[in-house]
């Protein structure tokens, strides 16, 4: 589904990604972890073209992301993304947030869009807040709405950029529960996160990045059991300590 | 299109334009800025100090002045200052003040309202901890302001103060309504005397542009440097 081949990216003189190659098969859940500054957020933003890259190739469902002829809005409609800071549209009510992409990008009717929105809100347990504004919700609630907003587009895969990093600890589990359900339903997911419990539960593979490089890319059991690289071992020991 | 314009008129009138006109403009700008900042700081302190009545006076003054067009204020002071002079000196008739003095009073008092808001923002941006530390050392309110708060506030607001000065520089062109010979007034006089409106006004616009743009570019660079230090 998602193929990343020898991708390199520079910000001016500074290299953020160095020859990254990996893939995410349909139905797989791939977790990307690593210290801050390792380039993991940048890497998944390359998948839906939010970040351009100078070298390499990224293909999503057969469509080349870097190709100038690619219709990016159309591609992005199929790739759902959830952000660290939720990024709900503050001037729109919850249901309107879910409506916007459906109506303006997919061309659905108001009735269709609303039906979809309400069913998704029910799935994440937030129907009672449908007419509220994002500012009136807690962080955990906002993030669940953000996930629903991405799902409303019926995406073929979902990208998560540190979805729980900005949440207070007591709200992390409500968001992770939604993500676990999603994984069990067979959604293709690429998740940047520090939540190793989540990785252990549903990940198929775990990628460890450091300083712009993919250092380790292994099946879950292998990664947690005996990671090959020393950097990965150090990182894991620090993270799993608490 | 530009063939029947006499660009020489600019060269011929340069001494008049700059020695008479620009000197007036720059002097007025410099003095009104200095006076305006001093007065504006006082007004800001009046507003933020804890004394009764003074904050209300300061706020009313600032809001009042800022509601009025500068042109109107220029007319006001042109007529008012002689009467104030009469009242102050106890003369029998309104005192004749020169054009420059009248303008200086006008611009200082007018721009002070704007400088006051800038300084107020500057003073308020200094963390309360600074004041507390000053008091804890035994400094009086006056000394805390003078040695701790104002120096920092002033330094923080330098880019904004400079930008307001550039605005002041451009505002001085409005003395035209009193037929006073500042830079624009001089250009206008030459234009009307020689019938060369296009050349003179384009030249005046170019000069104002070059000076203002250069000054604001310097301020931008200054802002960039200050930002890094913070």
């Amino acid at each position: 589904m998602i193929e990343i081949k020898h991708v390199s990216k520079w910000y001016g003189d500074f290299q953020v990604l160095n020859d990254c190659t990996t893939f995410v098969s349909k139905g797989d859940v791939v977790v990307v972890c690593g210290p801050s500054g390792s380039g993991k957020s940048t890497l998944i933003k390359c998948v839906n073209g939010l970040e351009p890259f100078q070298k390499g190739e990224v293909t999503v469902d057969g469509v080349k992301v870097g190709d100038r002829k690619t219709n990016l809005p159309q591609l992005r409609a199929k790739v759902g993304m959830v952000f660290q800071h939720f990024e709900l549209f503050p001037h729109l009510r919850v249901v309107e947030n879910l409506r916007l992409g459906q109506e303006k990008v997919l061309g659905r009717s108001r009735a269709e869009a609303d039906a979809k929105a309400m069913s998704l809100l029910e799935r994440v347990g937030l129907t009672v807040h449908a007419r509220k504004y994002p500012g009136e919700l807690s962080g955990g609630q906002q993030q669940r709405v953000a996930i629903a907003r991405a799902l409303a587009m019926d995406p073929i895969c979902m990208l998560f950029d540190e979805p729980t990093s900005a949440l207070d600890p007591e709200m992390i589990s409500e968001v992770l529960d939604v993500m676990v359900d999603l994984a069990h339903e067979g959604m293709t997911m690429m998740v940047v996160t520090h939540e190793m419990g989540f990785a252990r539960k549903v990940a198929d593979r775990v990628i460890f990045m450091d300083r712009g490089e993919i250092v380790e890319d292994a099946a879950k059991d292998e990664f947690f059991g005996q990671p090959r690289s020393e950097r990965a071992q150090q990182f894991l020991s620090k993270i799993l300590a608490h | 299109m530009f063939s029947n314009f006499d660009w020489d008129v600019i060269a011929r009138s340069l001494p008049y334009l700059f020695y008479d006109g620009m000197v007036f403009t720059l002097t007025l700008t410099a003095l009104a800025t200095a006076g305006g900042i001093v007065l504006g700081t006082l007004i800001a302190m009046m507003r933020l100090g804890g004394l009764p009545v003074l904050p209300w006076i300061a706020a009313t003054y600032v809001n009042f002045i800022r509601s009025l067009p500068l042109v109107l204020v220029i007319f006001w002071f042109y007529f008012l200052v002689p009467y104030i002079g009469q009242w102050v000196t106890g003369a029998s008739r309104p005192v004749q003040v020169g054009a420059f003095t009248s303008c200086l009073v006008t611009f200082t008092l007018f721009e002070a309202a704007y400088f006051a808001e800038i300084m107020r923002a500057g003073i308020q941006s200094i963390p309360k901890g600074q004041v507390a530390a000053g008091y804890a050392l035994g400094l009086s309110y006056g000394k805390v302001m003078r040695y701790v708060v104002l120096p920092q506030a002033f330094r923080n607001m330098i880019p904004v103060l400079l930008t307001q000065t550039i605005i002041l520089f451009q505002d001085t062109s409005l003395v035209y309504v009193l037929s006073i010979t500042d830079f624009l007034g001089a250009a206008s006089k030459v234009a009307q005397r020689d019938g060369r409106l296009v050349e003179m006004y384009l030249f005046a616009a170019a000069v104002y542009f070059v000076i203002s743009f250069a000054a604001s570019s310097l301020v931008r660079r200054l802002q960039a440097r200050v930002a890094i230090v913070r």
Partner: protein
Amino acid sequence: MSYNWNWNIFFDPSPEGVGTYLSMLRIGLRWTLVTALFSWIMALVLGSLVGVLRTLPSKAAQRFGFAYVELFRNIPLLVQMFLWFFVLPEVVPRQVGLWLKQMPDAPFYTAVVCLGFYTSARVAEQVRAGVGSLGRGQGMAGTALGLTTAQLYRYVLLPMAFRIMLPPLTSEFLNNIKNTSVALTIGLLELTARARAMQEFSFQVFEAFTAATLLYLLVNLVVVTLMRLLERSVRVPGYIMGK
């Protein structure tokens, strides 16, 4: 004090024969407000366009936006008025120039156009700051959904940016109203011009200018109140400005 006060002067007929001095001032006020409104609409439209240009990733758009803003910000308003009124008719083809010079109400149209451009540069800066204050995340979220750039600005960025900008935009609107007074130099008979005329005809300097002052204060009050109502009606619940 050797000044003769005469507050009844307002009810005396003005030498222009149109009515009292009071009605003279009232007509001036009307010109002030009409000029301000038309130029403001022009400034909003142009300014929003240029402001948006400055936030686009295209270098050409940004350079144009920068040049536009700097041009209108670094020349005094009065000089700009003169350029539009005196210089423009001379540098365009003869026919156009003649048409411009013979236009009825030329000072009005010139003032509207001049103020429109002048204020649009300031509005552009506000729009740029407003959109900039939203942070990159909002743009990314909208793009990730598949919105085109136009859709992104229309449905996500500009609605929030304008709410954030209401206070500074109110200031600009008030500035625009005050700036109409500069047009008296090209013959627009707005409020300050009328007050000056009243002063020249009647010699009642302070009555004339006090009336003008009070009228400007009144306009100020009305605008600020209306804007505050507008702010309240479009306020987004729960949003902390300047996140």
